[in-house]
Each structure stands twice: as structure tokens, then as C-alpha cells.
């Protein structure tokens, strides 16, 4: 343990209002949710922060609400809560999948979805699911609340739309139509307790034999979790026969910008991205019948 605990201060607010007020006055204090991201660099002596705002007691940030229209998740919702929620299991298989492949049981009990999004690792597992479902996030400060398309949340490597003094409070996802196509696949360093080398989520549906809605998003192949917009465009509005696999592959090459790191290579990430995408499209059209 190389973390300098004695040098650290923690403020524990009782309410969200108090937390936001504190953050407005101390914008450089670091929110602390489940700690599964923060505690690792902290214990290694590599975290630059020494002042923490403890979100743990804020019940306003907890809770899962599922209506006919929307799923709304409090920022402190844990992976276990998502994974074992009957309603989510029935309607949002990608969210369940991404929660399931995140760490393992003990991480899933502590890690929160809000922490996952704000931590903004390009290799995180839930963001592709949320991008494919077209989620929105609520950002709140003493100035009030704003809803932002999750698609517009990640601005660059480890940069988000969160302004100074803001907390991420809720995540909202439209309920998928029954019978829609859901796809999720994580290619990680191993089967569990793994970091993604490539992660792909897809959501789509068809009307009259043509693709009426389609979103696909990758993790770990760009500085941010990212929609494959160019490739999506070559699928949307078409029938299986009208999709040109070579053109899709070329578009995908533009959509992603993977790198070499200690976990994998850019070349491998491209190789897998292409094949997973093709395999997903195959499943999609098979699903449409």
C-alpha cells in the first residue's frame, strides 16, 4: 500500500443537495463512488488527488426505475443490481451482458455504472451497450440538471462533458421494442476479471425487410467508447442483400482508431473488430429472417 491515507481528506455529505453545494465550493474534490477505479491508483501511490467527496450515502443516486417508456438508473447502481434485476434481464440483455463481464462478483457488488462512465476508460464494458441503446445521462450541479445524449458525453481520451461542479446523477435508456436485435461481445484478456481488447454492442430492428434502426458501438478501439457511425450508415435503411460487406469493412476502418498497448496491438484490434462486426451483421440479418 503506497497510498498516503493520512494526507487524504474525505467529505461525506448527507444529501445530494449538500454534495452539490460542497462540490460547487470545492470543484477539485474528487467524487468517490464504489472506489473500484480510484482505489487502484490510490493504493499504488499514483493518484494525484488527496481530497474526496464520498457519494456512497447519497440515496438520491441509487435506485432502478423501469417504466413502459424508460429505464432510469441512479449513478450509484451497481453491476450486481443490474445483472440480477428481472426487468432489465427481460428487456436490456446487452446491459446484463456488460454487467456480467465486468470484473467478477466482488467488483460487480461495488462498482457503479456512474463511476464507469465518468472514469471514461475507452476499454470499459458498459459504454458500448449504452451507446447502442441510445442512452442519455443526467448531469447535475447547484445550477440545475441537464440531460445529455450519452453519445455526446465522451469528448476525448478521459475527457467528458461533465462541467466543474457537476455530478453524473442518472442514466436513462429508452425501452427497446420487443423482438429487436441485441448483440454484445467482449473480447478480453481472459474470460473473467478481464480488460477488453475489443468490445462491441449492437441494437437494431427492421421494418418491411429493411433496417429501420441500427446502432453499433465499440470499446477499446478508439480514445473513447465509440459508435461506428460510418458503418452504421451503410446498413441503415437496407435489406441484407443491399449491404455491401466490403464497403462496411472500409467504413469500419474509418470508424475506429485502435492503438498498440501492453494488452494488445492495433492490428489485432482491427482484425477482431472487422470480424466481430461482420459476425454481428450476419446474426442481425438472420434474426430479421
Amino acid at each position, binding site marked *: 500500500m503506497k497510498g498516503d491515507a493520512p494526507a487524504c481528506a474525505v467529505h461525506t455529505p448527507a444529501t445530494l443537495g449538500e454534495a452539490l453545494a460542497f462540490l460547487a465550493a470545492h470543484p477539485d474534490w474528487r467524487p468517490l463512488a464504489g472506489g473500484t477505479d480510484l482505489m487502484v491508483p490510490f493504493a499504488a501511490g499514483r493518484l494525484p488527488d488527496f481530497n474526496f467527496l464520498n457519494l456512497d450515502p447519497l440515496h438520491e443516486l441509487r435506485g432502478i426505475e423501469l417504466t413502459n417508456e424508460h429505464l432510469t438508473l441512479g449513478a450509484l447502481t451497481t453491476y450486481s443490481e443490474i445483472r440480477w434485476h428481472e426487468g432489465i434481464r427481460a428487456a436490456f440483455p446487452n446491459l446484463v451482458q456488460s454487467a456480467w463481464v465486468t470484473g467478477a462478483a466482488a467488483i460487480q457488488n461495488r462498482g457503479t455504472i456512474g463511476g464507469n462512465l465518468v472514469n471514461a476508460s475507452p476499454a470499459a464494458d458498459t459504454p458500448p451497450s449504452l451507446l447502442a441503446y441510445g442512452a442519455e445521462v443526467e448531469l447535475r450541479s447547484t445550477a440545475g440538471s441537464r440531460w445529455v445524449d450519452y453519445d455526446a458525453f465522451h469528448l476525448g481520451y478521459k475527457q467528458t462533458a461533465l462541467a466543474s461542479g457537476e455530478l453524473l446523477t442518472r442514466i436513462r435508456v429508452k425501452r427497446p421494442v420487443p423482438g429487436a436485435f441485441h448483440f454484445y461481445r467482449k473480447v478480453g484478456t*481472459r474470460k473473467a476479471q478481464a480488460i477488453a481488447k475489443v468490445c462491441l454492442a449492437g441494437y437494431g430492428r427492421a421494418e418491411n425487410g429493411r433496417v429501420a434502426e441500427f446502432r453499433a458501438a465499440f470499446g477499446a478501439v478508439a480514445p473513447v467508447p465509440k459508435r461506428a457511425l460510418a458503418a452504421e450508415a451503410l446498413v441503415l435503411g437496407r435489406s441484407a442483400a443491399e449491404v455491401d460487406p466490403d464497403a462496411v469493412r472500409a467504413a469500419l476502418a474509418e470508424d475506429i482508431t485502435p492503438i498498440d498497448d501492453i494488452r494488445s496491438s492495433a492490428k*489485432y484490434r482491427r482484425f*477482431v473488430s472487422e470480424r466481430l462486426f461482420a*459476425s454481428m451483421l450476419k446474426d442481425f440479418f438472420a434474426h430479421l429472417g
Partner: protein
Amino acid sequence: MAKLEQVGHSRLRKEGRAKVTGAAIYTDDATMPGLLHGATVRSQVARGRIKGIHFGEGIPWEDFVIVSAKDVPGENRVAMIVLDQPFLADTRVNHPEEAILLLAHADRVLLEKARAAVTVEIEEEPAVFTIEASLAAATVVWGEDNVFKKVSIRKGEVDAAWASATHVVEGTYGTGAQEQLYIEPHAVIAKVTAEEGVTVWGSLQCPYYVHKALKHLFNEPDDRIRVIQMETGGGFGGKEDYPSLISGHAALLSMKAGGRPVKILYDREEDMVATTKRHPSKTRVKTAFDADGKMLGLEMEFLLDGGAYVTLSPVVLSRGAIHAAGPYYWPAVAIEAKALATNCPPHGAFRGFGAPQSLFAIERHLDVAAARIGMDPVELRRKNLLRIGDVMATGQVVKEAVDLPGIMDRALEKLDYHGRKARYAGSNAGTDPIKRGVGFAVFMHGCGFTGGGEAYLASVAGVEGTADGKVRVLAASTEIGQGTNTMFSQVVAEVLRVPMDLVEVQQPDTKLVPNSGPTVASRTCMVVGKLVQDAAVGLKQIIIQAGLLREPYTADEFQAAVAAYVAAFGSLKAYSQYSTPPHIVWSDETYQGDAYGTYAWACYAADVAVDTRTCEVAVTDFVALQEVGRVINPTLAEGQIEGGVAQGIGYALWEKVEWRNGRMANAQMTNYIMATSADLPRLRVYFEENPNPMGPSGAKGIGELPMDGPGPAILNAIQDALGTDAPREIPLTPELLMDCLEARHV
């Protein structure tokens, strides 16, 4: 053979209850009054000259215990094979993370700040990081030519084989470094006082290795050094030589601290980045076969990356070279082996000790060769497997009645190798992106020390009677999870015909136990177990001769007799010392003779599924069948094999050390990938018993064997699945397999 009461039964692990309740005390669980914590300042460069050490601002340095090379009272070199590795670098460093300075303080937070505040100024010099660069010797970093040790094994005239051969097949194979990754990192506590001398408590495999190193470091006689093994959370070779270094560090700090105890505990990152790994290897193989697939000749160049200091490399090289020919009859052999210096941290012992590297090369090569020749890999091996009376590469004659073709056939049968192979050939032709294949490897592992090692060690083990009439085993052989305590207890209970709970095992403590040698080389059961057995017989003779016991006896009579003897004479001890059986002959000069007293034999077979979209390989079934003499405790023995196979699968597929200028860049458990429970299939283990006269009740060694087979078996299965012989290197990560698919050979 008489019916056995203990041997062959799955008796419960002796210290099992303490382990499942969390009551077992490992080194970091122990504390002492006045304890200080120690930290190590390390080199940030691979090679260079130390120009100065600077102590930064803002740290109360006067409150710290600080030790550098000039504080060393005796020899500043770890006494192992060659005196070349310093405890603390003095004038120069030869690898990243080499220890330069030691600090101790009671406050761990302050200690970390202090460590970060020290800067060592080093003038960098050119360094060598690969086997190829070391061999080329454009930069010489050790001796005259970077060569730590050469071994050459010759049999017959290999050059004649090429001329008469129908097929000559060549190939180059490679294996990577592998981290032992015991779950308990290195930990040691030392206390050095004028009255008591040097005492060390630690997580370690070989108390007498540490004892010897400390003796030289402090220039003190034997009886002023005491080494005590604490419960040890895994070793696998990783706690064979490194504890000498870290014990020395803690002891130097304690000495300088005026006798306050000092604990050094590595965190995971420091443990991975600074301590030993398995030697990376490169092997060039050239083989000659006649038209029927009979082996005619084998030429091999076997190269190991030894890292920056000699440490154990000569013996690792030796075992690797001796196993290199595999379990086959070759009329002619020329093996040239070299351990080479690089500027990585020294590579050290890891389960298998060189054999997994060379056996990977030969067993993988035989499937490459079979495909080239157009022969079934099973039939190619069948024609050439060693049989009784055959002469091995070192001239050793196979004297045991081993049935290798039978072992192979039975393992393949368990896997349904032939059936699956045929079915997969059909299904792989379809469009399913998952391709399946089966593969196997046949191999052996020499039990005990190589060549004259056991004779040189002349190990001693003993037993003593206790006041309450129990028998206590006295040996320096450590329990590191493999079941030493239980095995010794079973062997003693068996030979004395008493229940297990009449037998205790003394915690290894050099003050109380004789030197039964290191806990390595699959020798504890076969060699030390036999000594313990003989000592127990000796103890029984003593009480019988004293007239206190008569055969046959009951357990109660035995216990009463022991108690009576101890009451009457004060102590009851019996020892036994190893002496080489006269029929075992070995020459270190020529590398000819009986390399090992006996071997364990095995065939491992794997079933794999390769996802061609992601190049991920899943091992879907695994059979490990072996002949290991007699199995003393089936549950423990299976556990050894299962654990070793899991490490072997990791070695084959995932466990990759990412080197950056000689330093491990992925020194976290999140980036160095060992298997979780979700990554492995149910490993199926089978034993065939063929009692061997060398071991207690006929046991051989099994600890290292399971590391040898998975690598080649899995890569051979991948060749079968994909129809390419390109995979020649492990770990065969998905990234590497992708490259192999691009460059299909077959």
C-alpha cells in the same frame, strides 16, 4: 506387496484446518515488538555505472535506517553457484530494478515517501535484452562472451544421419518468460543481534539456501544463523533462490537498526518487476528420419536467457538439455546448450526447471515433422518411444519397465483422440468460425537433482520422539502447498504402523532440523521421503533394542515406548543420509551417465476450440495421464498435477511478460494473465502406478512433471484445428496466432 494403511489413501492435509479457517500464520501475519518496515531503492536503468545517491528534501533522514553496499559485513555476493550477484549494487548495475539501497522505518507511509525521494545517478551503458543479441556478443555484459554455461551432449555420429535420411526436418521454437505468480508475494522478517546472531522468518522454499547466503553475507559461523520457514503461500520455484537476497536485505537493515526486527514485504508490482521468472528459450531442431519414420539423428541448439547474473542458470540449462531429446530412442544426438547473459533481472527456478522449454521444442517439432513426412503423429512417436534396454541421449540405459506406447494409447483413448480427430476434420471443413482440434505430447521428467546433484548434497533427514510419545519429522523440506507435511506423516505412519495423528512435522527451522536439501526438483517425496522413512525405521530399532518395544505392537504400545524412551534417555532421534545407489553413475565433465535415478513418464492430450474471428483458443478438454511410481496421497497428487497443468495451459496461451528494455511492463495481475476458474476446463488426471524402489513405498517425484506437457499438446492441437504448423512459440497469444494465420506454412 503388503497392504498399505496410509500410503495410497487420501489422508486430510495436516495443516488443512488452519488453512481453511484463516488461522495459518504466513510471514506478513506475524508481527514483533519494535518492528520496522524495510524498502528497497532500485535501479531504473538496465546497465550502468553508479555515480551517486541523492537524498531528497523534506524527509527526516536521520530517523531512517539506511543500508548501502558499504555496510555489508561479509561477502556482498549471494552464495549460490557462482559468487556474482550482489545483495546491493556497489559500483554498477546490471539489470532494471536491481537493489541499490535499503531503507527502514516504523511508518510505512513515510517509508514510501522516502523511497520516492532517493535518486540514484547512473551513467547508462549499452545493454543486451535478447538471446540473439547476447549470442552475437557485439556488446559483452558478462564474462568474455556472455555465456554463463555451456552443455554439450553427444551420442553417435549425427552428421552421418543426414546423409542416410529419407526426411530431414528443421524448425525453430521459442518459449517466453513466465512469472511464478504465487498468490503470497515475497515476505521476510529478520532480526540480528550480537547475542543471538542472525534470525530470519520467511516465505521460502529452501531454508538452507538462505542459511548459506546469510553465512557469507555476515561472515558468521553456521550456528549464528537461523532460518525459519513460515507458512508459505506458494513458491513454484519463485521462492527457491530469491529469498536469499531479500532475507539478506532485511537482515542488513536489522543489523544497522541495532537489532530491531525488520520486515520486508513486496507488493505485487515489486514482486513481479524485481524477482525471477522462467528462463525464455530459443531452440533450433534438426531431425533425420528414415522412410518408415524411424528416428536417425537429432541436432539441437538450446539457448536460455539467464538474465543478468548466473544464479541457478547452469542447473536449469542442464536439466533442459538432458530432457531435450524427449522420451525417444535416437541413434545419434548432438545437443549444444547455452545459458546466456542479458540485462534482465536474473531468471530463476520455476517448476520444470528448463525441461518445459526443451520438451516444448521437441514435442512440438515432432508434430511439425509428422505433417512434413505425411505420417500420423501417433505412429511417428510409437516407432521411436523409449523401451526397456534403450540408450538415452546421455548414455543412460532404460532399466525400468516403462510402457510408453501404452501410456500414449491410454491417454489418447481417454480423450477419444482418434474419434474426435476424425469428427473435427469433417466439421472444420464447414463454415463455422470455431475450429476444433486435438493434440498431445509424450514426455518424461527426471526425479531428483540432475546428475551428481544428490550425491553432492548428501541430504539428511530425521525423526525424533516426543515426550508424549509421538514421532516428529525433522527435515528442512518445506510445505509450500504441495503436501510435504501430509506426505511425510503418511510415510512415517505407514512404516511404523501407527495412525497419522501420532506423527508431527517440525516447522522447518535450521536450528532444529538437518539439511534435507532444497524443496525443488520434485525430490521431496522421492528422495527426502525415503530418508524420513529410513529414519523412522531407525527410531523404531532404537526403542526395540532398548527393550521397550516388541513386534508386533499396537499404536498405544508404540506411543508408550517412545514416551518411556524419552523419559529415560532425554531424547530419541534417528537420522538417515542420502547415499547414491552404486548402480547410478554420472559424469559432469562428459554429461554421460545416469542423469536421473528415475523418471516419471506421461502423455498429455488436449482438445481445443479456436475462434478464427478472434484467434482466441479455448482448451475444452484436457487429459493428463502419468506413471509416477506409487501415489502416496491421491487427492494431493491430483492437486499437484491439476495445478501444474493449469500453469502449463497459461504458459501456452496467456502468460506473457511484456519486456521494455529488460523491465517487465505488465507487472500487475490485471495485465499479466493467469487463468481464472472460468478459463479452464475440468482437468482430467490419471495415474498409472509402477512402484519404484528409489522412493518411499515406491513413489517418484511429480511436482514438476505437469508443467512439461500442456504447451506442446495444446499447440499440436491448434495445428490440428487450423491445418497450419506455423505456431512455434509460446505463449501463443491471440495476437501471435493471428500473425501465424497470415503466414500459413502447411
